[in-house]
């Protein structure tokens, strides 16, 4: 049996990827998915990367231009060697010939200096491939500084907070064989602050408690005052 969580963000990314792939010549080929941590951006993009075998790299704060190119080449299965311009050519050639998408996670690390932004634009211009950039909430505003880059983004996708429907789709994965009542799901979504990650963590905790208690179904009343992970810093004891 296989379960795929069709949460809303995944659908948004899939639509954007299809729009990018099917764009008419002349239209820009980049998309940006942005939103707060825990909204499931990486998970949604990863699911799409698995669907169309995209190259996926996670930026690190310590990376410069050379490191980024090396990591992309490694991800392509190539041996990185040569100068920055040579590696740029190799990346562009591989993206253009394979027709695969490039996804860059934690793109915020690129916005700290002009040369990184220009490098990503070079990759895009040199390959005319499709790129998906993942970043924090303020990504669109921050990118405005680079007009030539900003204008190459076809779709801006704000990641959506977790919904009760999303939580329902996660139940079979995190709580197999357990019925989780609607009121408890609503409660989880309310206290999660929009974060898919927190809902998942809480569902896993519920599943564990249920297997200890021998529950077949659980609702808000049965859960009672047991702790729920909200991500808040602990309060001072009264």
């Amino acid at each position, binding site marked *: 049996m296989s379960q795929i969580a069709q949460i809303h963000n995944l659908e948004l990314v899939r639509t954007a990827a299809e729009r990018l792939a099917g764009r008419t010549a002349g239209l820009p080929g980049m998309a940006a998915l942005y939103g707060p941590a825990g909204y499931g951006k990486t998970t949604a993009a990863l699911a799409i990367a698995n669907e169309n075998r995209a190259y996926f790299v996670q930026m690190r704060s310590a990376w410069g231009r050379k490191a980024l190119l090396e990591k992309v080449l490694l991800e*392509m299965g190539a041996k990185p060697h040569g100068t920055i311009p040579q590696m740029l050519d190799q990346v562009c050639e591989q993206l253009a010939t394979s027709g695969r998408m490039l996804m860059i996670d934690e793109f915020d690390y690129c916005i700290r200096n002009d040369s990184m932004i220009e490098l990503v634009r070079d990759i895009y211009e040199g390959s005319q491939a499709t790129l998906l950039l993942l970043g924090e909430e303020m990504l669109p505003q921050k990118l405005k500084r680079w007009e030539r880059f900003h204008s190459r983004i076809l779709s801006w996708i704000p990641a959506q907070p977790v919904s009760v429907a999303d939580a329902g789709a996660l139940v079979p*994965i995190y709580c197999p064989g357990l019925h989780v009542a609607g009121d408890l799901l609503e409660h989880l979504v309310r206290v999660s602050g929009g974060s898919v990650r927190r809902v998942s963590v809480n569902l896993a905790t519920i599943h564990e408690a249920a297997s200890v208690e021998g529950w077949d179904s659980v609702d808000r009343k049965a859960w009672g005052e047991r702790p729920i992970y909200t991500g808040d810093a602990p309060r001072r004891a009264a």
Partner: protein
Amino acid sequence: MSRKPITTYAGGKGPRQRIWEAIRAQQGEAWTRYHIARVAGVEDNTLTTYVQALHKAGVVEKIGEAPVGNIAAEGQWRLARDEGLEAPRLRRDGSRVTQGFAQEAMWRTLRLVKDDTNARELAAHAGTETIPVVEVSAKDYLQALLRAGYLIRTREGKGRGNGGIPARYRLNPARNTGPRPPMICRTKVVYDPNEDKVVWAPVVTEEDAIYGT
């Protein structure tokens, strides 16, 4: 006569990959099968089969015949569509092979997800509509990777079935060897194409050979 450097494919290379690289190295110029077989160091049959598949898929095209000596002739071929570093995975009839993509998706997921995961969650994250991943194969893959030292078990499993709590794993950061998924071969041997070596093999005794395992 300067040729631009060809990007080299990292890790282990099978015969088809070597053929593909030899074809790409011609940079769009005409080639004969004899020449490619020599450069790639493969059997003629292997080459013929693969060139046929490439031809059916429209990746290479025949552009004519060139005389060899007085009576024989030899086909001249050319790369029609470059598909990048990775040799196209094709059947004899030119259709695409998707076998192995499920393990590739699981490996990609393990490398990217920061939290630990269990078999069910891995199957859900790695599976897609076209290439679903069943929980059992996720479990098998996780166990094989654990044996071969790729994973850290963050939590022991307890019990079985729906009531049980499955073990949780995450990737050992030191064993993030590259983009190509470690493969579980038919003999249960785990082969890592990134490092081009066997990273785990079952212990075999003389009695296994006599009585079977």
